[in-house]
């Protein structure tokens, strides 16, 4: 039952095929069995079983939600009360959160069972899960390859059946790229749709949490529980949350799809381009109209992102100073020593690199040339998306220019690593919702199709993804050895 979808598991729980406790035990056993994947940082078996028992009572009392009793797992960036919340860093290896993130609170309330905390790139900075203090995660499709990042643990765990669904966060592609690399469905919602309270900040104006699941149908179920206004997050948007499951089956005839020509240029693996083309043809068969669109400023997305995100992170990570929580160096000689050694010893290389870039970009004399300029570029990119989406309903393209690459292959070259997010980053700059869904294979590794929608059009995205999944079976493929 580990390769069942959330929707199927929910039916099984209701028909009495299995209980939540049985289901949870089964998943916990499987997590132990496949611990070599390194997908989990913390397994919360005891709490999970207690939640499962409570869920079984709710199911019996018929007060259950769709998620009640479903085993899920949290990316270790979401604060969970009483549980270590490491953010993949040595800095927070000793941090037990005293409170729940809003997303955690909401999923708990829905009755989901939390199996544990998932591995990730340190402070969500990375595209391969290799910057984690807890070591890299293996890709279930090829254990010599990366699962993508930063939500690499989430993607690998869902793909390997170590959880029915997972939370992820996406600042520049951190849900979509690992979803693509691991052959699962990932949704990055509109900025402001899901509360950021309790989600440890990397780049506050770009970060957004979302679901990572086997299917679009499951993503709809999870997003339903996660989304909504939160008075604790001033940037969350006070708009009603639609019924995401209700619109899944709407026919796609007349759907207007735009293909940004900038997504299909130099650097894109030809076989991936062919997979995307096939997927787009499938949509034509489903009644969609396809046209090419152009977004000339997309080429500036990576440089703009690598000014804005590091600038914000340089301030966001200042609170990790060894004073109140987290790592503190041994025997600090004085205050400066406490700061420099605590931060120097506990932050990894990539985190330090981004703090330095950000600090530089914000410094007196450089602010206008870097930060301000990057914000202007961001506006231009947003305008490009707005005019494209005025013509079409959704945009489609690849998620990443390559399939999952080898562990260690790009760790020596940050620029090559950054380019892995070339098709995803612009979406965060614009704050739009986007999905990655499995669309085929290249070299026996999954390829993701990216679907980008208009602001708060998650329901439309899910509908577009779901109809595709009703007519294809890429999302049903299971990596060898994990059947």
């Amino acid at each position, binding site marked *: 039952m580990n390769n069942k979808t959330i929707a199927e598991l929910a039916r099984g729980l209701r028909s009495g095929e299995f209980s939540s406790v049985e289901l949870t035990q089964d998943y916990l056993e499987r997590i132990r069995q496949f611990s070599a994947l390194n997908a989990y940082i913390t397994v919360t078996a005891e709490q999970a079983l207690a939640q499962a028992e409570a869920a079984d009572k709710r199911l019996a009392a018929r007060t259950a939600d769709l998620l009640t009793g479903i085993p899920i797992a949290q990316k270790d960036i979401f*604060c969970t009360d009483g549980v270590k919340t490491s953010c993949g860093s040595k800095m927070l290896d000793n941090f037990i*959160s005293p409170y729940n993130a809003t997303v955690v609170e909401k999923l708990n309330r829905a009755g989901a069972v939390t199996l544990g905390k998932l591995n990730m790139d340190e402070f969500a900075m990375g595209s391969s899960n290799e910057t984690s203090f807890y070591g890299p995660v293996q890709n279930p499709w090829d254990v010599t390859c990366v699962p993508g990042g930063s939500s690499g643990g989430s993607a690998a765990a869902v793909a390997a059946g170590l959880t029915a669904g997972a939370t992820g966060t996406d600042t520049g592609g951190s849900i979509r790229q690992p979803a693509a690399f691991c052959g699962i469905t990932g949704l990055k919602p509109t900025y402001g749709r899901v509360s950021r309270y309790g989600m440890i900040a990397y780049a506050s104006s770009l970060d957004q949490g979302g679901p990572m699941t086997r299917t679009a149908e499951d993503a709809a179920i999870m997003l339903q529980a996660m989304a909504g206004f939160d008075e604790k997050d001033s940037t969350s948007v006070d708009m009603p949350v639609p019924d995401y499951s209700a619109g899944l089956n709407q026919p796609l005839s007349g759907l207007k799809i735009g293909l940004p020509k900038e997504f299909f240029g130099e650097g894109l693996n030809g076989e991936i381009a062919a997979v995307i083309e096939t997927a787009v043809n499938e949509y034509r068969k489903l009644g969609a109209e396809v046209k090419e669109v152009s977004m000339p400023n997309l080429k500036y997305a990576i440089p703009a992102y690598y000014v804005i995100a590091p600038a914000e992170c340089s301030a966001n990570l200042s609170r990790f100073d060894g004073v109140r929580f987290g790592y503190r160096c041994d025997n600090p000689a004085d205050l400066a020593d406490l700061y420099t050694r605590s931060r120097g010893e506990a932050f990894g290389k990539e985190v330090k690199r981004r703090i330095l870039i950000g600090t530089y970009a914000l410094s007196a004399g450089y602010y206008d040339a870097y930060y301000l300029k990057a914000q202007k570029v961001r506006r231009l990119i947003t305008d490009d998306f707005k005019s494209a989406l005025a013509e079409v309903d959704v945009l489609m393209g690849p998620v990443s220019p390559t399939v999952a690459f080898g562990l260690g292959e790009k760790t020596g070259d940050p620029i090559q690593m950054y380019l892995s997010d070339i098709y995803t980053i612009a979406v965060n700059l614009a704050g739009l919702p986007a999905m990655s869904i499995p669309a085929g294979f290249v070299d026996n590794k999954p390829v993701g199709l990216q679907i980008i929608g208009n602001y708060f059009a998650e329901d439309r995205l899910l509908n577009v993804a779901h109809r595709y999944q009703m007519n294809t079976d890429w999302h049903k493929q299971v990596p060898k050895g994990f059947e």
Partner: protein
Amino acid sequence: MNSQWEVVIGLEIHAQLATKSKIFSGASTAYGAEPNTQACAVDLGLPGVLPVLNQEAVRMAVKFGLAIEAEIAPYSVFARKNYFYPDLPKGYQISQFELPIVGNGHLDIDVDGVTKRIGVTRAHLEEDAGKSLHEDFHGLTGIDLNRAGTPLLEIVSDPDMRSAKEAVAYMRKLHELVRYLEICDGNMQEGSFRCDANVSVRPRGQAEFGTRAEIKNINSFRFVEKAINHEIERQIDLIESGGKVVQETRLYDANKDETRSMRGKEEANDYRYFPDPDLLPVEITEAFKDEVRVTLPELPDAKKRRFIEQYGQDDESAATLTSSRQLADYYEALVDASGGEAKICTNWVTGDVLGALNKAGLEIGQCPVDAERLAGLLKRIADDTISGKIAKQVFEAMWQGQETADQIIESQGLKQITDTGAIEAIIDKIITDNPGQVEQYLSGKDKVFGFFVGQVMKEMQGKANPAEVNKILKTKLKR
């Protein structure tokens, strides 16, 4: 002061806003709690927490802006000011930088009978930091984050002041205003109202400003004047002996009455300000401004003008009585309740009441004799039940207890004696007992008359109606 030099002063005042909760969290702002008991997850800067702006702080800032006739920004932005310090939990302070909520405004001060307009450049909202406690920790530093996140309004003046005296007048005026507006309790001991001064000197007639030094954290009116005067002297001495003032931050040491260098310009931090992505820009509509405008009280200048007109007060009394809103309210309540003359009320409040408060170290809000009880006393003076002198005695008793003037007059038998028969009997006795003084008076020594009045009053325990005593004495001692 050396008249060759002109002094230029600008003040930055931090007024702690009197909100119940902090500017970005729900924790209480009450002063004096056990360390770290009023700091929630947001104030501690725990991983994942987010700030949410307290609307009340915005309302107070707008109220202040309207009171000084300033521009209220329709759109203002919170920024992060980045620096590391142990009592700054997030490693940045949320403040406003490029787009403050309050723009150009002004405040009028009176110095030596001359009114001068001082410009206010801006006022912006920000959060306070915690406190580092260097004593009692055996060489270590303790951190108390109760104050972290307390809302501050930083009010920056134009460099319009030309003497320490003007600076103090401005500071007092601002202090009076924020309390009138009830946006700050003005408690300087608790740090609710703090001042930094930018001081420079230039040769009289020169257009450019001299190099300034910033004096940090001067927390009383007296210290402001002393610190500025000391700094002026230091700068003039320095220049006259061939030196140069350097731009730096200096700390005033009240014990030694001197300022000393804290850090120079080279060591100044690059705060790397940028807009805080966790907070939306603050948008102020005309409707919101109107809503706040109707809550503005009568402001000190207007009230003073009215007191002069309505109650016939002189400038000084009016200034005193309008120096705080509560005192002015007390005065007007007294006039209302006593139904008597405003003049008598003015004398009592500026004299007896303020004197007694001063002596006891109390504020008007803590006055043991409220306006209504005091009115009861003034009525008994007006209807001749007691004399003005006895009234002081009754006031003393009212200060100590809860009784009304009537109860005290009754229980202590202080009712004035107007019975001419009784007074005459006493006067006859005193004339008989003091033939020497009678002789002196009759021989033309008018001063001796006072002696007789004193004797009569003494005999009658002050209860005799003085007018009656005078009249009878004059008749009996006819020359």
